């Protein structure tokens, strides 16, 4: 397999890999590095690529594992990721104004979710994978995925309601 065919295989997936890395690692630089590293890893294992029935799921799965390893390494070094620590008060000032702020806000809420919930939410609600694919990537069973996803969705909604005090019955 030469560079071109490999790049054409990677091309449709690399954005998804980057977004998952960004979701887990939060910092842009860390996510870019992780994406690059993972692509290199897959490139070095290119002889085995044909063995995978669902290459995309395999790539995303490697990305997920790599990012979780990175997080573990950081925790062991007591280097917590401290990016995107937005000031709450400042956000509430422009609260209702722009889409951008709202997105930042959900970003912050999602960042507080447990890693499994982050991954499942990212894969389902943003990348729109079906449950079989998510099961392949996360090695979880479908019912467990549904439960995790449901918790993530509920949590995000509750947090949003808390900050906005919307009058929902």
């Amino acid at each position, binding site marked *: 397999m030469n*560079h071109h065919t*490999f*790049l054409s295989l*990677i091309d449709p997936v*690399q*954005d998804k*890999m*980057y*977004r998952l890395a*960004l979701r887990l690692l939060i910092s842009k630089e860390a996510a*870019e590095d992780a*994406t*690059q590293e993972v*692509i*290199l890893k897959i*490139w*070095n294992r290119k002889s085995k690529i044909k063995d995978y029935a669902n290459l995309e799921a395999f790539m995303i799965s490697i990305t997920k594992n790599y990012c979780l390893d990175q997080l573990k390494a950081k925790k062991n070094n007591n280097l917590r990721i401290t990016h995107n620590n937005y000031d709450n008060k400042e956000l509430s000032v422009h609260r209702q104004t722009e*889409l951008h702020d*709202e*997105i930042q*806000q*959900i*970003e912050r809420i999602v960042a507080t979710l447990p890693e499994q919930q982050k991954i499942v939410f990212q894969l*389902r*609600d*943003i*990348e*729109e*994978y*079906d449950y079989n694919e998510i099961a392949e990537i996360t090695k979880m069973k479908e019912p467990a*995925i*549904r*439960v995790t*996803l*449901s918790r993530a*969705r*509920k949590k*995000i*909604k509750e947090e*949003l*309601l808390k900050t*906005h005090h*919307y*009058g*929902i*019955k």
Partner: protein
Amino acid sequence: MELNDLRLILDKYENGKTSVQEERELKAYFNSHEVPQEFEAYKQIFSFSSESKKIGYSKEVQLSARPNKKWAFAGIAASILIIMSFLFFNDSSNLSLKKQNLGTIEDPEQAYLKTKETLKMVAEVFSDGRKDLEYLNEFNKTKNKFINE
């Protein structure tokens, strides 16, 4: 979409029971319609999902970048070595030529005298040779006797 239907399907969504297709419809609906305030939180979530998908990996993918660089450096190092060695050997050959004394005379007068001496010596050798050939004239003398008379 009826509000009651919306409520039902959102309930399904929250419990992780919607299909990908239904979720896409929800996204499309919330991104293109004004919704009552009770659904405002969902609107935010769905616009977040759609917006998040627009983020792309902007960096160029580099494959096997590191080994390539290694060899490039090796190449540069090798070519520098080759160039250096050429310079070095050229220098040394020049030096050895300079070191050899070829007996070049710098002073013009002395050079003139030396040349003159050398040419004189050559001339003497030549004239010595001619003395040895003197007897050949005897042939001419004898020949003339017969032909002229």
